[in-house]
């Protein structure tokens, strides 16, 4: 039950493949330019090392970017045939694949996620997203949104720090395929892969202004959303900010898609193959340090097997390797920021104070950087804050149920509705459960699977609109 069951020699991925500049400007109209605002620092959350100074776009920068995007839309991008637009997207997909190692290492350095994940999930899925939507660009009339679907114009897009490059791909690929141009703001703590993506746009000879990248924090994001020249707002992030955006666009003609928070139930029945279920529980909550909006953060386990499942889960948690994100053996990397770490600590302390049983495997955490051990709470009730609020960290709450109906009640007892998991050997029960769970994605006997062809997005306060698949085109067409 300790982390030294298996001894591994460190197997760090080399950093030499990336070249991080000491400072970065904004990417506007095809060029890197100085911002008019201040700058901020982006740090490696695993070491607290300052990686670079990054420009913070102010309102005038936002205005310049929106104008550039508008020009590019009206003069070039909306006039080009879908087939030609598609070719640019295919080019981008290929360059992402060519530079995959560089992107993966940079992502892990800036975000703190294990290289195994950035290398095997984030970057290949981002490339696949561009490849998928590239093929849609000249087939939009077959997508079921009218005989002659038109782009909206300029899309303002604000993305989170948990999957920086992948979320960029989810936003930019469908927008461009549909003939829109974009102004995208990456998250404050993870701007570097977006800036490398700007270089990729240059390498692809993408017409200037089709993609504009503005780094910054909340103020920059607000300015992008509020700019009157923006026809479409796409946001992935917290429900709190999503609400503010929904209010900000009220009374305008802006089309909006929001992909917000979640508190997914991962439901394990007594007939589930326990080992598979435990792997799914671990993947559900500890993938990407639990910085996943669709994380399976509420384990609902049938009472008759709860003890066994929790015991095996703890044993498995004892073998998780927490540490250097660039080590290829690492399962759980660094928490993305000091701020996020403080929130995870605070909610975990509240969990203890409210009476839930807290457990983490013995594991040594690095001295510097932001770290939190994989943690499970047992004896959690639905009223506990750790069962209601999104923690966005490697913290699992375990609740129990007796009947399928009770599992559905408890799973749906949340204002969120992004995802859910079901583990059982009985097919009819899977379909019965799946039809009753109020969630946009239901993983049965698997968890946290993503694919460009598969629509993703929530019910209720997890937002509206879908990203991925044919459905993902709708938010970018009129």
């Amino acid at each position, binding site marked *: 039950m300790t982390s030294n069951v298996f001894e591994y020699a460190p197997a760090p991925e080399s950093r030499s493949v990336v070249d991080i500049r000491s400072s970065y400007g904004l990417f506007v109209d095809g060029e890197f330019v100085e911002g008019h605002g201040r700058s901020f620092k982006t740090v490696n959350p695993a070491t607290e090392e300052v990686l670079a100074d990054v420009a913070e776009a102010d309102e005038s920068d936002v205005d310049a970017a929106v104008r550039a995007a508008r020009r590019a839309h009206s003069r070039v991008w909306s006039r080009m045939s879908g087939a030609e637009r598609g070719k640019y997207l295919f080019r981008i997909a290929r360059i992402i694949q060519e530079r995959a190692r560089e992107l993966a290492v940079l992502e892990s350095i800036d975000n703190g996620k294990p290289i195994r994940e950035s290398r095997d999930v984030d970057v290949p899925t981002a490339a*696949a997203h561009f490849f998928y939507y590239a093929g849609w660009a000249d087939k939009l009339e077959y997508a*079921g949104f*009218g005989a002659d679907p038109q782009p909206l114009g300029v899309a303002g897009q604000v993305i989170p720090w948990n999957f920086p490059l992948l979320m960029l791909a989810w936003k930019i690929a469908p927008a461009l395929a549909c003939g829109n141009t974009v102004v995208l703001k990456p998250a404050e703590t993870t701007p570097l892969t977006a800036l490398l993506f700007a270089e990729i746009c240059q390498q692809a000879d993408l017409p200037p202004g089709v993609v504009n990248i503005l780094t910054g924090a909340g103020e920059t994001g607000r300015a992008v959303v509020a700019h009157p020249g923006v026809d479409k707002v796409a946001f992935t992030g917290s*429900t709190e900010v*999503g*609400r*503010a955006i*929904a*209010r900000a666009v*009220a*009374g305008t*003609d802006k089309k909006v898609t*929001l992909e*917000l928070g979640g508190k997914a139930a991962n439901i394990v029945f007594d007939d589930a193959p326990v080992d598979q279920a435990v792997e799914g529980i671990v993947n559900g909550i500890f993938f990407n340090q639990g910085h996943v909006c669709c994380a399976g953060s509420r384990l609902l386990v049938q009472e008759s097997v709860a003890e066994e499942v929790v015991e095996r889960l703890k044993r498995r948690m004892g073998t998780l390797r927490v540490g250097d994100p660039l080590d290829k053996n690492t399962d759980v990397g660094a928490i993305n920021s000091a701020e996020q770490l403080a929130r995870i600590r605070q909610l975990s302390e509240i969990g203890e104070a409210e009476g839930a049983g807290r457990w983490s495997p013995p594991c040594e955490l690095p001295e510097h950087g932001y770290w939190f051990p994989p943690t499970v709470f047992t004896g959690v009730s639905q009223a506990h804050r750790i069962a209601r609020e999104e923690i966005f960290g490697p913290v699992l709450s375990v609740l129990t149920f007796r009947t399928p109906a009770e599992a559905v009640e408890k799973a749906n007892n949340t*204002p969120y509705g992004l995802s859910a998991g079901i583990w059982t050997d009985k097919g009819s029960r*899977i379909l019965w459960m*799946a039809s009753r769970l109020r*969630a*946009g*994605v*239901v*993983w*049965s*006997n*698997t968890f946290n*699977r993503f*694919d460009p*062809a*598969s*629509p*993703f*997005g929530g*019910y*209720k*306060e*997890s*937002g*509206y609109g*879908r990203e991925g*698949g*044919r*459905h993902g085109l*709708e938010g970018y067409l009129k």
Partner: protein
Amino acid sequence: MTRRTTRPSTRPSTRPDARIDVRIDVRKTYKLYIGGAFPRSESGRSYVVDDARGRFLANASQASRKDARDAVVAARKAFGGWAGRTAYNRGQVVYRIAEVLESRRAQLEAEVRDATGATPAQARANVEAAVDRLVWYAGWADKIAQVTGGANPVAGPYFNHSAPEPTGVVAVVAPDDPLLGLVSVLAPVIACGNTAVVLASEPHPLPAVTLAEVMATADVPGGVVNVLTGFRAEVAPWLAAHMDVNALDLTGIDDPGLARTLEEAAAENLKRVRRPGPEDLTAAPALDRMTTFLETKTVWHPMGV
């Protein structure tokens, strides 16, 4: 019926001993429709509804905040059962509304004429179009999933499938076209499995109450459609801010300032909002009145032996 042309003369006869041989109309009290019943407003209030020439037609119930809340409770209670019916069955119920409405065409035509001052031909066209629209949406109930859902070819050994599901409780502010407008916004909402709280046209609420009577006798389960009459500026804000309403259709809001306020209130629980906009209700509809109030659910399962 409240049409003036049917009102008999009550002028006394010149003969002092003659009986007054007339029949007095039994007028209808226009009430709300909540949870399958027809209550008056709990507030005890009513407001005067005039015809197109400004003559008194009836006192309609003036719904209150509490009536709106009661309607939401009824709609939520009905949602599981309605959404859980087979799409085929929902289609049949919506078709049944069309059947019963067809049988009451004369009454609705008269009410539309009274309300809007339409000519008999215009009123007939309006009612016929409303019946036909119900038939159109009835047919969609068991087809929309095939058109908007399907299998997704993911890059791995997984079965992956997306299908639409109803959003939940939809609050609808109906436009002033008293029957066709109302049917055009209501039918897509319920055909897809949502339940509705409809705020009828403020100046022309009477055909909405008659449509409620049609639905009450067309096997529409109580609570699936709830009809409120009253003032938009008073009632709509409570629906827009209600935390157990999932979506808001603002078609009937003409005032841009009010539309904006309502959309802002709807942001609190991320309601799906359909903004008001120019729309030709007589034109063939697109799918968007259905898809706005549908969620997409995607289900994954591994494939293997």
